[in-house]
């Protein structure tokens, strides 16, 4: 997380010191001021994400300071710190636009929940800006990403499903850029002026995923000091992107199914029904059909989710895109690092094209970033690309003769750009035999 900045204004030294320590441990960059005038001077060191203001201070009081601060910085969230006696004044501060007030001494739960809520709201609005950039970046990228026939097909699919409002499932190995595709679909849909809210279901513990998705009411469980909207609610009008959908528990599957059917739900610990009009896009690197067969993923949910599927090919199945992707990342990192654009030497390029890329585009991106950092010459050379030995990695897990045959045919066909006659010649078999084998292994057209 990038450094968040906070300013603490209080006339009591011990309050300043303990809050400073507390927020520093939370990763904030903290400034303090003993009175209103000092605080206004500190505004030059801003902008601050959060300003904590003591209500009662000698000289300029908290309310006056709040007004002056607002004139200088509209985006800072102001937290008013007050003794129990002056809650009425604190309420006045809220009317003037303070984010919230807390009474001294503050319950640490309250303070950290408050801060978390502020940051979450800020991130959400920042995320919206970021994703607009990402989408425009992606659409600018389209001719590059889509050069291979397989990727062209993906881009066509994106265009087709973007116009509909149906649920989409994006299938692909990790690192293939599933989230980027979800964002592209959202960015081209009529919901694009509303948020896309992403949740990685695989990375959040089960106990927290529920409140993350559905939100909770104040007091729903220990520590729930505030009502919090869940991601489903935040996606109202826009798109909900659930990554790693194959990993959710049976209970979450039922809950999710119900929401998809009714578009209604209740927050944890609440009775009030909430509605949210969202479009669902999900993604997984697992084989959903297999999960259904094994009884791990509900069949009814599978049919709800799998209205439209967008399979994303692994990078090794579209090797012809590797040089273009590499050039793209070189350019991007050169710009980001303020360095000159490097060339890609022919040897380096052939290493990249031949490598199996188990981590897909993300791995390629990391490799280029690394090469841009460690390489000293004007071009990227093989020494800048310490990829794991391909022999170990590319050995297929399935070592049966037919798996190896499939792999070999695939490689040859790739080399000849899918030309069956040429491929058959190289393989030493006739065209009909090759066609039969392609059909058997599900290769080609």
């Amino acid at each position, binding site marked *: *997380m990038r450094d968040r900045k906070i300013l603490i204004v209080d006339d009591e030294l011990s309050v300043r*010191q*303990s809050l400073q*320590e507390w927020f*520093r*441990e*939370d990763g904030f960059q903290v400034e303090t001021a003993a009175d209103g005038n000092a605080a206004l001077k500190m505004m030059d060191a801003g902008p601050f994400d959060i300003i904590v203001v003591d209500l009662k201070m000698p000289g300029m009081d908290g309310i006056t300071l709040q007004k002056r601060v607002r004139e200088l910085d509209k985006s800072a969230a102001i937290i008013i*710190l007050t003794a129990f006696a002056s809650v009425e004044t604190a309420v006045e501060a809220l009317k003037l636009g303070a984010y919230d007030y807390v009474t001294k*001494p503050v319950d*640490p739960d309250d303070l950290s929940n408050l801060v978390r809520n502020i940051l979450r709201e800020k991130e959400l609005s920042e995320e919206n800006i970021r994703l607009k950039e990402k989408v425009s970046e992606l659409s600018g990228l389209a001719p590059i990403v889509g050069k291979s026939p397989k990727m062209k097909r993906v881009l066509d699919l994106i265009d087709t499903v973007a116009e509909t409002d149906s649920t989409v499932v994006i299938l692909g190995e990790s690192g293939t850029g599933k989230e980027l595709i979800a964002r592209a679909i959202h960015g081209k849909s009529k919901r694009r002026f509303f948020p896309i809210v992403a949740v990685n279901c695989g990375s959040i513990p089960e106990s927290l995923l529920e409140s993350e998705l559905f939100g909770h009411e104040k007091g729903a469980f220990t520590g729930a000091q505030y009502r919090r909207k869940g991601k489903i609610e935040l996606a109202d009008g826009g798109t909900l992107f659930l990554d790693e959908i194959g990993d959710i528990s049976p209970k979450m599957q039922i809950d999710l199914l119900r929401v998809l059917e009714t578009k209604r739900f209740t927050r944890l610990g609440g009775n009030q029904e909430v509605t949210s009009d969202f479009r669902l896009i999900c993604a997984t690197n697992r084989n959903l059909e297999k999960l259904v067969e094994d009884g791990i993923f509900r069949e009814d949910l599978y049919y709800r989710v799998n209205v439209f599927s967008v399979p994303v090919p692994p990078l090794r199945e579209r090797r012809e895109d590797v040089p273009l992707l590499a050039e793209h990342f070189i350019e991007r990192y050169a710009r980001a690092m303020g360095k000159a654009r490097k060339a890609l030497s022919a040897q380096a390029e052939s290493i990249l094209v031949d490598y199996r890329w188990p981590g897909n585009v993300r791995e390629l991106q990391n490799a280029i970033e690394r090469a841009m950092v460690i390489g000293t010459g004007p071009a990227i050379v093989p020494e800048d690309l310490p990829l794991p030995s391909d022999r170990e990695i590319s050995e297929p897990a399935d070592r049966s003769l037919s798996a190896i045959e499939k792999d070999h045919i695939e490689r040859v066909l790739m080399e000849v750009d899918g030309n069956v006659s040429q491929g058959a010649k190289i393989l030493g078999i006739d065209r009909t035999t090759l066609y039969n084998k392609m059909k058997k292994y599900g290769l080609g057209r």
Partner: protein
Amino acid sequence: MTSTIYLGFLNGYSPSWAEDLAPRVSQAFSLPTQPIDLELDLDLYYAPERRQYHATLIIARLLRYLPELDSKIVGITSLDLFIPVLTFVFGQSQLDGAAALVSTHRLHSEFYGLPADIDLLFERTVKEVVHELGHAFGLVHCPDYLCVMKASTYVEDVDIKKASLCSECQATLIDRSGKPSHR
């Protein structure tokens, strides 16, 4: 480089698991630990209106017991701690400093009206000691739910996380260990 972590129980606090703590702390930071005698008059730091003890002042005092400049010291108490402004703290430390303090007061299940659970209390204490020490090693709070450096303001948070650093915090720790402390 930090040489040793000194663990001291304050005011004769001697829980049954006292000796099991050192190996766990040692393991978390790959550093040797040593017990240390801490005879402090904690009454000096008692705030009668709050019926709690002032953590910041106790930490300042702990520093005087630091055997070597390049070591860390952790005080463990069963008394309830506060810092001005906050109603309570589980523990406190100097960020990127030498001293840390942990209270088991609010780590007891009994505090929440539940039956006593010594094993749970021990696990929670290990996590809080490692967490506060993490701050003393310069680590800030981590967004990873399972990482010991995740901020915990209620005890259920403590139970979710593990007693160890996530790989990122581990990397930060190694990265920082070459550099001298700021304070």
